[in-house]
């Protein structure tokens, strides 16, 4: 994985533990909000990313693709996969705006019949499939391939789809996640909705005033149990439950009582075969928008009643990385289980008047974490919840 708080999983864990936020002002985005709206930007220039991704000097890779490629290489290395052709391996990617980070800078040149030049090679990067195929072609994936776009729940849905393809016996190994680069397009989009806070975001705080955008990428290697046994793969966690529901309430707002979030968490937990008492930590969507936190908080209270487990939003670390958020936070859930740690919800001071619960604000080392719920909710009413569990073999 790669985010504003680390170039790899270890770097992310280190920053989470040392409570180092990745929020700051952009170095790379050309926008009038450069010094006004904080973002969680990956601290490398695009040429630097090209080098890190192993494609130095090769043109045509967007920042979206490069972030994805860096995360993909780490995921493969971590899983000990040197050749994806050894076992038919699928790839499910997630993206909200594809290569917009690069195309928005050359769009009007592309549109101008009087102009010609290098920018023409970005024409194909306009859509969401470009980053997926570039990553696939660079790594050598030739099997099942797909890109999902359900706004902020995109990569949670990618993980879900991959798990279901394995369950149905269509593949035994599939790599799922998402990639997202900061763009003027999304920054202005969320800002036009008055959803962006000028200060570092404060999830589940009474004074919260919106989200901060972030960028990053994360992938997870999913394998069937039969392949795990055959290859003696080292299992780091189990995806034990998942659910996808829709709010059917409003194009950009969740229902005030959190109906969709409640149903997603309830159904995912039911699939996992565990009960509310088994969940030690919820990595909430927690964007710090006015409506999300009320809705998600209500859903937590409805599901867990008086037994709400520790919960925190890691968005103050990474910003809201949109299509990548689900996969980034799924990895944080794995880290919580592996290291028996709960990450703090930064910037919290005052409980919300609508809720009786408050997020965990301290780093909790040595906390017994066996089952984590990870939430990702998005525009279009798209809700996704994952249950990630300690693998018991």
């Amino acid at each position, binding site marked *: 994985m790669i985010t504003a708080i680390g170039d790899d999983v270890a770097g992310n864990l280190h920053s989470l533990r040392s409570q180092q936020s990745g929020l700051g002002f952009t170095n790379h985005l050309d926008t*009038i909000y450069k010094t006004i709206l904080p973002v969680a930007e990956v601290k490398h220039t695009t040429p630097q990313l090209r080098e890190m991704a192993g494609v130095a000097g090769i043109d045509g890779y967007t920042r979206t693709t490069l972030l994805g490629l860096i995360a993909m290489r780490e995921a493969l290395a971590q899983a000990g996969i040197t050749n994806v052709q050894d076992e038919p391996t699928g790839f499910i990617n997630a993206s909200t705006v594809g290569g917009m980070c690069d195309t*928005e800078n050359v769009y009007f040149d592309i549109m101008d019949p009087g102009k010609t030049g290098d920018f023409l090679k970005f024409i194909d990067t306009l859509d969401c499939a470009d980053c997926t195929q570039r990553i696939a072609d660079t790594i050598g994936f030739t099997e099942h391939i797909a890109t999902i776009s359900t706004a902020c729940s995109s990569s949670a849905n990618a993980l879900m789809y991959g798990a279901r393809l394995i369950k149905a016996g269509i593949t035994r190994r599939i790599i799922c996640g998402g990639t997202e680069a900061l763009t003027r397009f999304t920054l202005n989009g969320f800002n036009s909705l008055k959803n962006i806070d000028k200060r570092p975001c404060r999830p589940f705080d009474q004074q919260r005033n919106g989200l901060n955008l972030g960028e990053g990428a994360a992938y997870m290697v999913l394998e069937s149990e039969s392949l795990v046994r055959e290859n003696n793969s080292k299992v780091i966690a189990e995806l034990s439950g998942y659910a996808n529901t829709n709010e059917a309430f409003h194009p950009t707002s969740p229902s005030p009582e959190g109906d969709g979030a409640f149903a997603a968490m309830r159904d995912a937990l039911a699939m996992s075969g565990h009960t509310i008492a088994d969940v030690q930590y919820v990595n909430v969507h927690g964007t710090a928008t006015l409506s999300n936190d009320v809705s998600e908080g209500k859903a937590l209270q409805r599901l867990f009643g008086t037994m709400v487990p520790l919960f925190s939003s890691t968005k103050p670390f990474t910003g809201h990385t949109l299509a990548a958020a689900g996969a980034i936070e799924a990895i944080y859930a794995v880290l919580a289980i592996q290291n028996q740690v709960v990450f703090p919800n930064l910037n919290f001071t005052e409980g919300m008047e609508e809720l009786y619960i408050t997020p965990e604000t301290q780093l909790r080392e040595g906390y017994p974490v066996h089952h984590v719920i990870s939430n990702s909710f998005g*525009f*279009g009413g798209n809700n996704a919840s994952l249950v990630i569990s300690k693998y018991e073999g």
Partner: protein
Amino acid sequence: MAAISPQHTFEGDLSVQPMVISGGNMLSCVEPDYKAFIPGNSLRRMSRILKMGLTVALRCLQDSGIEMPGAIVTGTGKGSLQDTEKFIKEIRDYKETALNPTPFIQSTYNAVNGLIALQQKCTEYNNTFVHRGFSFENALLDSMLLLHEGKENVLAGAFEEITAEHFYIKSRIGHWKAENISNDTLYRHFSPGTISGEGAAFFMLGPAATPNSYAELAGLKMLYKPTAEKLAASLQAFISHEEIDLVLTGRNADTNYDQYYQVVDQQLSGIQQLPFKHLCGEYDTAGAFALWLGAQLLKTQQLPAQWFPMLQQPPAKLRNILIYNNFFGEQHVFMLLKGI
């Protein structure tokens, strides 16, 4: 099922609809009167692809007699181009200030899905695939998984629009023919590039046939950038035990990628093939048009002759239809359709 396309596919008796002919290498949809489906005050706020997508979905629900689907799964390669273009321009024109959020919201690829769910109050599974020539096909695969997992039915669909702006952009990388042709003459212009198109189609899928069923989707195979050998071998495996009566082929007179259709020709020699791109043009989710067409042919057991002037003799029977399509040589798809 239901379809809006550059042909008269939305309502009425297909067998009497003439082929719609247009020039300029760009086919646009014959759009219905949306007011019959969407209230006027909502319509004014919606961009074109939202209207098309929602209307076709609602028409499909009507046609199936199922109001509340068990899931909504779609595919779109480009989503709302109109909204994306508009928001990019407004960011520039208004220098990032005082922007109207509507085009941003509607540019999200899952906006149509969200709208259908909202309209039908459908809180079930909802997903959107955005992968060029695999967008609709992944939506189909996801739907088949859902049915396998126990869903009673799934509303699956695809939607795509072409704008003048996007047509121009893609012309700069050679997607369209240099010569200006009309769709009825497509196969006489065998040259680099093809003609662009658009369309929306939705299907109600269930685990078993009902008296309303059009056809059975008996097979689906996606191949990413296959070699000619892999394409041929996969096709052989795909149809190994099937007697194919008709092939609906995505052939589009583009010499850049015709080699794949030649591979299929070799594998299927002796089986009648009919092309469909002169009817709908080329776009990411043209496979949905082919599926709609194939299912229509199987249900009615008729080939509208005016749509297929190249047809010399109708097949002796119409029981099994193979669809083969590829999108600019990258995403290749086989579908097997069977009569009920």
